[in-house]
C-alpha cells in the first residue's frame, strides 16, 4: 500500500486526468435544419469519438417523437463503445475497483449517456422552437448521480452558454477519484455535492450518508443512492408481474419495454436491470433505443431468435418490429401510477398476462405480453406485506425500499446454493504444497450442482416455492451466470495463488536448493519474482510480510549460485 501511495506521489496529475475518471466528455447536440440532429460541440475539445459513436449519440440525444416532450426531459442511454478503452493510471484504477460492487464497475465496452433535452417555443428561431440536448458521456453507471449533475449543468448552459460548461468541467477536473467507501466532496458550480460510492462490503439497503453525518460545510445536496432508480414508480404499471420480470431478467430473456417517453422507457429498463442485484446483468441493455441505432438491424432481425437484450423504445414503429419478441412490457408515463384515482395494486382485475397477439392491435394498455411460464410461485407473504404498505398509503420511497429488499432476498436465496457448491470445488488447504504448482479448482459441473439443490436449495432461505431447479438450469445458460462464474473463479484462483505464496514464503528454500542445479534455482527465482510482480500489480492480495519473506528467500538462494550468475540476476531484478 505504501508503495502504491509513493507511486502516486511521483506521478503528476495532468490536466483532465481527474475529469476522465468521471466523465468521457460533454456533448451538445442541436437540431440543424439541414442536417437534422447534429453534434454542435464536444468538451473537452481534445476528446475523440468514432463516427459511429457520434451518430448514435446524436440520435439518442433527442426523443424519438418529440411532440409530447415540451420543456425539459431527462433520461439515460447506453451505447457500444468502439474506440479502445484506455487507462493511464493503474493504481487509481485499482483503488476504484477493489471494493466496488460489480454492478457499479466502470464499463469498458459501453458508454452511458446522461441526457438533458430542452424543447421550448422560441419565435426568434426559424422553426419557432429551441431544441437542444446536453449529454454527459461516461463509463460509470451512476444513474442518479449523473442525472443530478446534468440537472445542475445543463440549465446553466442553456441560460449562459459555453463558459458554463467549461467552468463545470474544470470543477470536475478537481474532483477526487471515484473510490468506493469514501465520502467524496465534489465542488460543482458553486455548491459542494456529498456522495459516497457504495462498497461490496456494504450491507445492502443501508444508507451511509444519512442525516447524522454532520460535516461543517454541509450543503443541502447529498444523494442517498448514486445509482438505484425508484423501483416502485418505475414498475408500478406491472406490479402484479414483478416475480415474472425478475425471472426473465435473471435468465437473460429478450425484453422490450415500450413507453410513451424516453424517460419512462429508460428508467423502466434500469429498474429491471437492477432487480437482480447483487448479480450483474451481463447481456446488453439499452435504456433508450431508436430505429437509427447502429445495432438496429442486429437486434431486430427476424432471421434469428431475438437476442438476449433489454431494449427501451418509444417509437410506435417498434410495435410492428418487435411483434415476434417473446416478452413485451408496456408502461405509461413515469409517476402516473396513481393516475385516475386507481392505485396500482398487486392484484388488479386485469392482472392476467396478455396474449402476445394483442400487441398487434396497438393495444395501448400497460402490462406484460408474454407466453412465459414462471418457474417459481409468487411469494404470498411478500404480496401481503406489500399490499399492506400500499393500503397504509406509505410513501413511494418506502414501497420502493420494500421492493428492493424483496428482490435482494430473492436473488441472494438464489445465489447462496451456487456459492456453497462453488466453495466445495476449492482444494483443501492441506493440498497446497509450496514446492509444487498451486492446486487447481475442481470444474463446475451443472449436474453435480443440481443434486445439491435438493437438500441445500433456496428453500432454506426463501419462502418462495416452485421449480427452482428448472430456473437454475435456464440460468446456467445465461450470460449472467457465465460472468458470475468467471469472476468467482478468478477470485478463488487468486486466493489459491496467495495461499501458495504464503506457504512458499515459510519454506526453507536454502535446504531445497542444496541438491538443485543452476537452471532449477534460476527457475525458482524467476517464478517467485513473477508472483511478487503479480502482487505489485494488484492481481493478488497477500500480506507485505509474505512479500518481504519471499524477497529475502530470493536473495538467499541467489547467493548459492556462482558469482557471475548472481550479478546477472541482480541486474535483471533492478529492471
Amino acid at each position: 500500500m505504501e508503495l502504491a501511495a509513493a507511486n502516486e506521489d511521483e506521478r503528476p496529475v495532468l490536466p483532465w486526468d481527474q475529469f476522465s475518471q468521471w466523465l468521457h466528455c460533454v456533448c451538445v447536440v442541436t437540431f440543424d435544419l439541414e442536417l437534422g440532429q447534429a453534434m454542435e460541440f464536444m468538451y473537452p475539445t481534445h476528446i475523440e469519438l468514432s463516427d459511429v459513436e457520434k451518430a448514435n449519440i446524436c440520435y439518442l440525444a433527442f426523443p424519438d417523437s418529440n411532440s409530447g416532450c415540451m420543456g425539459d426531459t431527462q433520461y439515460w442511454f447506453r451505447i457500444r463503445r468502439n474506440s479502445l478503452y484506455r487507462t493511464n493510471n493503474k493504481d487509481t484504477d485499482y483503488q476504484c475497483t477493489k471494493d466496488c460492487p460489480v454492478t457499479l464497475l466502470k464499463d469498458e465496452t459501453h458508454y452511458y449517456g446522461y441526457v438533458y433535452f430542452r424543447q421550448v417555443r422560441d419565435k426568434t428561431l426559424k422553426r419557432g422552437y429551441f431544441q437542444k440536448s446536453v449529454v454527459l458521456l461516461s463509463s460509470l453507471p451512476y444513474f442518479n448521480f449523473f442525472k443530478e449533475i446534468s440537472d445542475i449543468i445543463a440549465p446553466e448552459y442553456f441560460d449562459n452558454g459555453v463558459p458554463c460548461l467549461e467552468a463545470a468541467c474544470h470543477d470536475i477536473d478537481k474532483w477526487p477519484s471515484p473510490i468506493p467507501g469514501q465520502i467524496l466532496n465534489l465542488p460543482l458550480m458553486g455548491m459542494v455535492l456529498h456522495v459516497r460510492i457504495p462498497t461490496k462490503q456494504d450491507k445492502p439497503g443501508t444508507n451511509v450518508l444519512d442525516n447524522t453525518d454532520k460535516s461543517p460545510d454541509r450543503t443541502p445536496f447529498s444523494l442517498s443512492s448514486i445509482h438505484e432508480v425508484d423501483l416502485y414508480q418505475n414498475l408500478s404499471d406491472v406490479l402484479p408481474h414483478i416475480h415474472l420480470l425478475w425471472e426473465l431478467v435473471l435468465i437473460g430473456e429478450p425484453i422490450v419495454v415500450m413507453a410513451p417517453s424516453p424517460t419512462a422507457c429508460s428508467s423502466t429498463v434500469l429498474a429491471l436491470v437492477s432487480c437482480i442485484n447483487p448479480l450483474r446483468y451481463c447481456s446488453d441493455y439499452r435504456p433508450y433505443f431508436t430505429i437509427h441505432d447502429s445495432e438496429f438491424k442486429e437486434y431486430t432481425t427476424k432471421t434469428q431468435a431475438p437476442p438476449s437484450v433489454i431494449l427501451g423504445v418509444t417509437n410506435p414503429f417498434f410495435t410492428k418490429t418487435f411483434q415476434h419478441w417473446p416478452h413485451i412490457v408496456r408502461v405509461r408515463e413515469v409517476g402516473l401510477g396513481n393516475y385516475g384515482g386507481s392505485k396500482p395494486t398487486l392484484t388488479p382485475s386485469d392482472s392476467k398476462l396478455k396474449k402476445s397477439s394483442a400487441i398487434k392491435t396497438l393495444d395501448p394498455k400497460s402490462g406484460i405480453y408474454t407466453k412465459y411460464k414462471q418457474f417459481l410461485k409468487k411469494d404470498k407473504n411478500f404480496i401481503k406485506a406489500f399490499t399492506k404498505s400500499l393500503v397504509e398509503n406509505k410513501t413511494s420511497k418506502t414501497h420502493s425500499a420494500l421492493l428492493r429488499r424483496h428482490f435482494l432476498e430473492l436473488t441472494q436465496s438464489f445465489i447462496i446454493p451456487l456459492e456453497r457448491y462453488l466453495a466445495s470445488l476449492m482444494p483443501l488447504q492441506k493440498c497446497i504444497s509450496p514446492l509444487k504448482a498451486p492446486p487447481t479448482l475442481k470444474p463446475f459441473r451443472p449436474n453435480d450442482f443440481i443434486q445439491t439443490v435438493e437438500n441445500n436449495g433456496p428453500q432454506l432461505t426463501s419462502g418462495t416455492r416452485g421449480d427452482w431447479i428448472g430456473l437454475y438450469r435456464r440460468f446456467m445458460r445465461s450470460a449472467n451466470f457465465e460472468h458470475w462464474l468467471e469472476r468467482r473463479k478468478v477470485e478463488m484462483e487468486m486466493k489459491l495463488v496467495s495461499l501458495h505464496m504464503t506457504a512458499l514464503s515459510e519454506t526453507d528454500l536454502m535446504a531445497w536448493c542444496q541438491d538443485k542445479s543452476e537452471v532449477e534455482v534460476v527457475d525458482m527465482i524467476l517464478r517467485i519474482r513473477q508472483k511478487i510482480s503479480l502482487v505489485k500489480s494488484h492481481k493478488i492480495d497477500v500480506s507485505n510480510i509474505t512479500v518481504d519473506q519471499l524477497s529475502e528467500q530470493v536473495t538467499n538462494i541467489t547467493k548459492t549460485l556462482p558469482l557471475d550468475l548472481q550479478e546477472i540476476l541482480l541486474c535483471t531484478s533492478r529492471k
Partner: protein
Amino acid sequence: MAAGPYNYSYIFKYIIIGDMGVGKSCLLHQFTEKKFMADCPHTIGVEFGTRIIEVSGQKIKLQIWDTAGQERFRAVTRSYYRGAAGALMVYDITRRSTYNHLSSWLTDARNLTNPNTVIFLIGNKGDLDGQRDVTYEEAKQFADENGLLFLEASAKTGDNVEDVFLETAKKIYQNIQDGSLDLNAAESGVQHKPANRPGQTLQNDQQPKEGCSC
C-alpha cells in the same frame, strides 16, 4: 490441468545470441507474448523469458536467456552459456555484417556449451525480403557445414518463430530419448555445485517425493 509437482516435467535452458539489433529480444517477445514489440530497448546484460510448451506429450518449460548483443557485454557472457541445452544464433538477413560475425558467435557457443547443445541458426527479419543482403542458400550452406539447424524467420510477422523454438526443443528431447544426451554428463565440469541426482540441465521434476499430489 495436469497435477504435476509443477506444471512441467523438464526445464530446458536456451540462450539467444547474435549481433546487436538483429532482433533477439523481439523474437523472444513474439514467442512468449505472441506480439511484435515495435520499439524495443537495448538489452542490458540479459533478460529472461519463459514459456511452457509440449513435446511428445511432455510439458517442457523453456527458460530463455536473451543476451545483450553489444560487444561490451561479451566479457560477462560465460554464465549465459553454462548449462544451455539450446542456443539460438540470430543474424539479420538485411545486414551482411551480422552474418559475417556468425563464426565468432559459433566459436563462443561451441567452447562454452557442451557438445550436445542444439544450435539453431535463425535469419531474422524475413519480412524485409526486398532489402535482403544474405541469400537463403548461402546461410543454409553455412548451417549444413557446421551441423546447425536453420530457418529464416520474422519476429515482426511471427513467421517461423514458433517453429525455431519448438524444433530446438524437439531435437533436445530426441537427444534425451535416444540417449545421446546424458543427463548426468550434461553439466559435469560446468556446474558450480555438484548435484547428487540425475537430471541437471534437463530437470525431471516429477519425483514423487513431496507427499500429496493434488
